[in-house]
């Protein structure tokens, strides 16, 4: 019997598995696709938690825009030899430490969560785009402005760093950037 709960757990599991595949993947494109899967799974979760607007944004912006950015960038690289050279080695030793660390982190987080008094039950109530919009353009207006500046800065610096080298060398002001 499929309930919201089981759906949630399934999609969560999917997200986890997909994320693991992202992290352990060898081929960049495959990993990116796994990332898309993971994001979509998370979007499902959002929807189940009563946040359809967020789920939409997740699909459109994350899986749609950002990941496409990734794909384009990867296509520009032509990473054949690099993938081969720098693929993670399948020695257990290399993974052991990070995994131990992560498990530890996980445990700690779980303990932290279970200790606190936030063990409430989610009351299923849909928070739609209107609610979000009211809040966003009310109390959070400043944050929105800052976010826009952030995006502008990302745009400018992205443009700057991705500029071909010849253009950079001709410009004395960007000598520092040249060093990177």
């Amino acid at each position, binding site marked *: 019997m499929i309930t919201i709960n089981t759906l949630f757990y399934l999609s969560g599991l999917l997200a986890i598995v997909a994320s693991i595949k992202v992290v352990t993947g060898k081929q960049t494109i495959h990993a990116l696709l796994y990332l898309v899967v993971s994001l979509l799974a998370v979007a499902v979760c959002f929807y189940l938690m009563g946040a359809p607007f967020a789920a939409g944004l997740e699909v459109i912006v994350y899986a749609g825009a950002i990941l496409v950015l990734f794909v384009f960038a990867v296509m520009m690289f032509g990473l054949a030899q690099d993938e081969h050279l720098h693929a993670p080695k399948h020695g257990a030793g290399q993974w052991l430490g*990070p995994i131990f*660390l992560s498990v*530890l*982190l996980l445990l*700690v*987080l779980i*303990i*932290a969560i279970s*200790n606190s008094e936030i063990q409430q039950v989610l009351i299923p109530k849909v928070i739609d785009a209107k609610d979000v919009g009211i809040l966003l353009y009310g109390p959070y207006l400043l944050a929105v402005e800052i976010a826009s500046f952030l995006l502008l800065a990302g745009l400018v610096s992205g443009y700057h760093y991705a500029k071909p080298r010849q253009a950079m060398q001709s410009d004395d002001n960007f000598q520092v950037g040249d060093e990177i």
Partner: protein
Amino acid sequence: MSLLALLPFYPLISFLILISFGKKLSWQLASTISIGAMLLSAGSSAVLINQLGNSESQLITAHLWSWFSLTTTQGSATINVAFYLDALSAVMIAVVTGVGLLIHIYAAAYMKSDENFSRFMAYMNLFIVAMLILVLADNLVLLYLGWEGVGLCSFLLIGFWYQEKANVLAARKAFIVTRIGDTSMAIGLFLLFKSLAQLTIVDVNQAAQLSWKIGDADAYWIALLLLGGAVGKSAQLPLQTWLPDAMAGPTPVSALIHAATMVTAGVYLIARMHEVFLLAPEVMTYTAWLGALTLLLAGVAALAQHDIKRVLAYSTMSQIGYMMLALGAGAWSAGVFHLMTHAFFKALLFLTAGSVILALHHQQNLFKMGGLFKKLPVESLLFIIGLYCLVALPGSSGFFSKEAIIAELWSSPTAGQGLWYCAILGALLTSIYSCRLFFLAFLGKARGNSNLEQHQDGHQENSSQGHLLRLPLILLALLSLFGGLISLDLSSVFSSAIATQAQTNFINEPSWLHTVAIVTPFIGIVFSWFYFKSYRENSCDNIKSSTGAISTFCKSGLGFDRLYQYVLVRPYCCIAKINRRDIIDQVLMLSAWYTKLWYEVLSASQNGSLRWYAAVIGIGVVGLAGVVAL
């Protein structure tokens, strides 16, 4: 300037000329300058001694300049560069300049072929300067100046052939061992000054009589410390080890410094400070015993030596032991008299030995000599004269002086009968080792492959050198034979000593004492005539020296060198070596090391690896969350 003031300046000027222009001077010029300066000194000292005899006060003084003054609460003690000539220092300057002159003449011939001849003569002159300052000083600081000066010259002359490692080490040993004694003397001076606020000899002697009683603690310590200085310089127990090694120097040096003059400086010091010693009878007893022990030890060691010069060195040590014994027994005049006669005959012995060594192409090993009596008759005769005096056979100068010492021992309050027996035993030993030396070197058949004849021809060609070599020898031989007839009148110097002695001189002496003393050397000679028969009559090419343990032990000077090596030298070098890097520095540098450690740890963490930084952030989060959660 008075004649006395100028006395040390003749050799000083000669030294300065020779050291400045040494390389440019010919042999004639260099030897003329140095011998001329010595001649002037010897002449002036003869005149001075004559003047001294005629003067009322038995005293001549010369004040050159004020050196410095020491201000204390009791007033100010001025230390002058001033000379003071009384009967005691007159004996010394006579010996220093007289014997010095003869040895200079000999040395000029002996060292003629050396490329550094003028440097050698310069050092010899400098030595005479220092020695004259030592004996003429009117205060103990100036005396100390001369004392160190002769030490330095001794160092320079022992190490004159500095290219040989052994000579260098011998020179170093001589300087450092005597320096130990000097330090003791310096501490004695500090104590003396603290106690009396005086350092001028006359004032010290007066003040000592006034402010101390017999057996005063200050007097005891001062006398003991001064004795330490004397022991170092005069090569007595326990600082005697440097003297045999000092024979590494050229033979005239051994004759001048290590037989006639410098080594007797200790005797002079004690005689000079006798008023302090009289106030410390225990120290006088120590002096006598040290002298007696040295006398016996050196006599035994001389019996086993192979090197002709080392035999003479041990003999010197033993004769100085006699002088110390005399001083310790309160026989001041006898001690100084023996100092003088010993200077004559020991210089003679050394110089003759030098001639023999020269004739044998620097062969010093007794077992490679033999049969020289026929080949070098003149030298042999001179050597016999020297030994005659050394053994103190009747009629010789040594006889007069040694008998005088032995005669006073029995009844001396600070010496006594035990020391008398020591002295007699010493005399027996002296005659035995003298005979052994003579038999080995001059009798029997020639051993070794020394081509003596060929050298004799060369000797004939260079007859002026030969004459120069023989002239001082003959003069010294005459002095040795008839020096005993010189009557020393030191009563003006030792008046207080004689006064104290007069009270105690009533102990009955057995009548056989003198007979025994006179007969002893003959017993020794007769004994050796039979005991060393093999040395005397041998006809084979080689005779073996005994290699037994006792013989080796005696040959090494009764093991003192080895003892000091293990007890003092090795530990000092060892500590120095361990701590070469300076432990304190290491400790202080620990702070630098600690800082550097942290620098390295922290800079290793800043490795520029992004993933590492991220991991560290993770660790930090785990840590923080752990703290919050648990």
